[in-house]
């Protein structure tokens, strides 16, 4: 296990390094010059040069990248902004704030959105999926299967707008989506996020229902399930101790990857409900050519996916004794 973690962490670091380098290169391949934008309408070559220096983009590309990397580990000194302690992701071109602060400020929103909806869709998705698998071929299965097919083909921006219109504007049942930090007021935190949770969960529940059902149906047809029945074990025991054990692995794998992705920011969800999470931050960073911000957000998103990949593999090894970590 230790070897596995060390090896995979090293691998993850390499991946993140490559991603950051790629973003760097792609950014400079783009036709727009951030210094020109920051410089404003009346821009002399001298000011432009000064702005470049201030933004830290006057040096050649490799030097810039190296400076940025160094900042991550030992911090960085800017002529215009002063000291930026490690881990330093630089200063935003846009609002001149440290990138890390902005990300830390936005991350709780994204985290709340992801965790809250995950809890809901895991419980309902797996529950319905298992029920459908038990009642395979019966009415309940057919209803669950077709309902989840419909739900999973819907889009968040449709359901989200519709839900807000009905639940909030028309029937006044729930609050309009907004974010209050959990530490400030847990009740308000939950109230403000209820609508996005419901909408996000609806679609994901459908996916997890379908996945759970098919995994369970497959597991139930395994030879070892037949053996368990031949031993005289009850249907219930066989279902939970054998079939579910077999179906669990793939479901946890997908869940881990999904969660990793959600934590990187759900762009469409956030924009549908006007929540200021990492997704919105990245959209803004792209549209304003804010390289340090973009790098920061991309790194967090990629990091979340990479970390959850490692977690998923480790958990899988715990579930399935055939998997050896190396």
């Amino acid at each position: 296990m230790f070897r596995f973690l060390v090896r995979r962490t090293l691998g993850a670091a390499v991946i993140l390094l490559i991603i950051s380098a790629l973003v760097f290169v792609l950014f400079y391949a783009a036709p727009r010059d951030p210094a020109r934008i920051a410089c404003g309408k009346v821009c002399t070559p001298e000011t432009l040069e000064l702005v470049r220096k201030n933004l830290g983009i006057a040096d050649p590309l490799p030097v810039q990248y190296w400076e940025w990397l160094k900042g991550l580990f030992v911090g960085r000194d800017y002529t215009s902004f002063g000291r930026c302690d490690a881990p330093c992701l630089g200063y935003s071109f846009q609002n001149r704030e440290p990138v890390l602060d902005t990300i830390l400020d936005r991350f709780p929103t994204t985290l709340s959105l992801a965790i809250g909806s995950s809890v809901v869709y895991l419980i309902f998705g797996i529950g319905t999926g298992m029920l459908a698998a038990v009642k395979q071929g019966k009415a309940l299965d057919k209803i669950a299967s077709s309902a989840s097919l419909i739900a999973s083909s819907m889009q968040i921006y449709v359901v989200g707008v519709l839900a807000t219109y009905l639940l909030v504007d028309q029937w006044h049942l729930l609050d309009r989506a907004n974010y209050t930090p959990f530490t400030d007021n847990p009740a308000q935190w939950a109230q403000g996020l209820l609508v996005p949770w419901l909408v996000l969960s609806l679609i994901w529940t459908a996916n997890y229902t379908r996945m759970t059902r098919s995994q369970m149906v497959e597991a139930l047809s395994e030879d070892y399930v037949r053996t368990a029945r031949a031993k005289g074990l009850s249907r219930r025991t066989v279902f939970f101790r054998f079939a579910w054990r077999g179906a669990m692995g793939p479901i946890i794998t997908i869940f881990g990857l999904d969660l990793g992705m959600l934590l990187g920011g759900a762009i469409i969800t956030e924009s549908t409900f006007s929540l200021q999470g990492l997704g919105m931050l990245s959209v803004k960073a792209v549209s304003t050519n804010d390289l340090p911000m973009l790098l920061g957000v991309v790194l967090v998103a990629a990091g979340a996916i990479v970390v959850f990949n490692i977690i998923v593999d480790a958990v899988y090894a715990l579930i399935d004794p055939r998997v050896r970590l190396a």
Partner: protein
Amino acid sequence: MSSTTPLLDVSGLTKHFPIKGGFPIRRTVGAVQAVDGLDFQVHEGESLGLVGESGCGKSTTGRLITRLLEPTAGKIVYRGRDITHADRKQLAPVRSEIQMIFQDPYASLNPRQTVGKIISGPMEINGIDPSGGREKRVRELLEIVGLNPEHYNRFPHEFSGGQRQRIGVARALALEPKLIVADEPVSALDVSIQAQVVNLLQKVQREMGIAFVFIAHDLAVVRHFSQRVAVMYLGKIVEIADRDDLYGSPRHPYTRALLSAVPEASVDTAPRDRIRLTGDVPSPISPPSGCRFRTRCWKATEKCASEAPPLARVEGDAAGHLTACHYPETEQTVPAPRLAKDPEAAA
């Protein structure tokens, strides 16, 4: 044995599959010694049987001969031409002469192609245009393997298992090969169908003079089909001989044990003295030193552990009957002891 150059001459053939591992940098830490130093020849028009239990390397050998795998060491000479490390281009002319038939007639045919397309595939790839056209040739081939030529446009799923294996045979015959490597061609089939396919292969071999390397675990089927038989154990040939010599007077203790373990559908013949081999085949990652069979052999001594027996002729045996054993069985061998029931003592 004929003195002419053999169709296929294999010497020292070895295939080791590397095992990756280690920390923190992954590297090759060992090897599965799937095939380890095989020497044998196949002559024109003859059928050589390769028998052995799972993991003995017989299928790997088949894949090496057809160059689906790259040998680790050794030499494969086909009609005087060294093809051991021949690349795609150099292999092209040989590929058409060496064909393969696989075990699983379900998996080895493309389900989206018609039978006609499947069988003419090899001709297309090799740019061969038989007189009268490819379709005519395919119909001939279907006829030869006992299928209805009218079924030219059908898909594999419309055929039964036995018929599918016939399609596989027709495909192998399309290029008029000189050598066919058949890897367990009948073991997935029902008993009654097995016999149909064995008969077909025998007819093909005789009438067209095609040489076969016939790989199977069923000793009776191999005996029926092959003029010469090689017995493999853990990547090595332990005994090779003409059919009658091998089945009539096996020299290697493993050959004898293997033969005695085959259940026969007869209640009339006196029950053969069954030798109970104990334990399982050891891992090919770290095979036993010396003779690889020694851990399961009732005759093993220290010599067997220290010295690998060469594949050589035992005095009094026919030429070409080679055995790799320090203590070969003799005609009047005392019956092997009925070993006690501690199957994994050696494991």
